[in-house]
């Protein structure tokens, strides 16, 4: 290979590298032009310096021209992102919130199991092994969570850019009035995204993996998952699905519109009432005492009075009672929150 051929070979490689970084529809056209321009530029440079084209001269010319990635970027027009600058702050906040939630859940799980489950491992370092197990779970769940979030945000970036793009034509007379209490119309997009994310996960579990929908029991038998249906809980799945679907729809509308309005406040209030009705149905139609009744029927009232109840049954009775109390408290909280929203809407004139 002559020194000129060696120089032209550098250009060939360079153009190929730039082409690999360009969109396919641009590639052939841009690389053909770029090759012609680079060859001419190098030859002109050689003429001006009174020497022949060679590898050294071509290399210095290409270094001045710029790294292949940079040149391809300039040809590429608008930068392309997996998650662009508009969505990245929200993505980061959602990631932090969900990671914190997962971290707290894992920590509570570990502490609870450390306090309630008797050592059952082969060594005295059982709790250390348990801690490592929970750390591993934390790592797995956070990674899976991050993958789902990246995928979701990338889809939003790709398919819904127009919804969040500032509109070029606008009318100041159509701007929303400042609410009586400024700031009350503000929505947290990150919070809404987390809420939608959790609701979708819950809906998937409730509809497709109902056996996972339950509580975790720590006993001498080890950690056990008890599905709600085994505790006699009545779950009106279609009604719950409708409620969650409406909550997700309201969340998406709020994300797109970027603020609370009167109608969305009323919609939220209606959703709260709907949730309270569902909780009432669950409470009145569940047979959370059925385990107790079953055991008494099988073993006799005398054995129950003597508290001669095996731990397995005792744990489930306790779980059922705790669940009942939890649902009742949840219903009261929902009613109180709905009442406060109604008061705010009618008397405080919030957005």
């Amino acid at each position, binding site marked *: 290979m002559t020194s000129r051929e060696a120089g032209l070979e550098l250009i060939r490689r360079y153009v190929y590298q730039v082409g690999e970084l360009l969109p396919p529809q641009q590639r052939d056209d841009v690389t*053909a*032009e770029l090759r*012609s*321009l680079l060859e*001419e530029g190098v030859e002109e440079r050689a003429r001006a310096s009174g020497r022949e084209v060679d590898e050294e001269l071509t290399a210095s010319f290409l270094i001045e021209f710029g790294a292949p990635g*940079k040149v391809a970027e*300039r040809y590429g*027009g608008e930068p392309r992102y997996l998650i662009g600058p508009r969505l990245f702050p929200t993505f980061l906040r959602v990631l932090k919130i969900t990671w914190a939630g997962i971290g707290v859940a894992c920590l509570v799980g570990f502490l609870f199991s450390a306090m309630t489950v008797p050592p059952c491992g082969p060594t005295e370092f059982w709790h250390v092994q348990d801690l490592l197990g929970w750390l591993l779970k934390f790592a797995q769940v956070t990674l899976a969570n991050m993958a789902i979030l990246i995928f979701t945000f990338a889809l939003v970036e790709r398919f819904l850019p127009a919804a969040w793009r500032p509109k070029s034509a606008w009318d100041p007379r159509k701007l929303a009035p400042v609410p009586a209490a400024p700031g009350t119309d503000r929505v947290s997009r990150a919070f809404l995204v987390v809420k939608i994310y959790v609701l979708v996960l819950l809906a998937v579990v409730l509809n497709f993996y109902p056996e996972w929908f339950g509580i975790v029991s720590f006993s001498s038998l080890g950690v056990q998952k008890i599905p709600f249906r085994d505790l006699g809980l009545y779950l009106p799945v279609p009604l719950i699905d409708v409620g969650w679907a409406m909550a997700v729809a309201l969340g998406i509308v709020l994300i797109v519109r970027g603020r609370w309005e009167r109608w969305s406040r009323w919609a939220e209030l209606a959703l709260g009432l709907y949730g309270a009705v569902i909780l009432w149905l669950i409470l009145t139609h569940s047979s959370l005492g059925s385990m107790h009744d079953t055991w008494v029927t099988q073993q006799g009232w005398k054995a129950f009075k003597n508290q001669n109840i095996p731990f397995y049954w005792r744990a489930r009775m306790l779980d059922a009672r705790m669940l009942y109390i939890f649902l009742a408290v949840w219903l009261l909280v929902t009613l109180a929150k709905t009442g406060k929203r109604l008061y705010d809407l009618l008397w405080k004139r919030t957005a």
Partner: protein
Amino acid sequence: MKAIPTTDVPDNLVLELRRGAVVLAVLAQLRTEQYGYSLKKSLGDAGLAMDEGTLYPLLRRLESQGLLRSRWRVEDSRPRRYYRLSSQGEAMLPALRAEWDSLTKAVRRVIE
């Protein structure tokens, strides 16, 4: 883009200053048909040296915006892509030039 003869002004500020002016200069030069390298030379001869890595992608962008049109020609056994103003570019150039004149006058008044 080659640095203009300044020693203390950071490159990014120079780039910011030149960005809009370069578009106008390129459009003005392409009232007559030219290919990338000849355009670079003519701009350089006029005192507006630009590096190729900036100029050539700019030509493509202006073409995609409809301000330039291009065609391939073979000269001296080398294929070259020639650019010139499109009808839309020709209509746009006087307006841009008027805008430039007004801007430079205003900036001069402000800084002097």
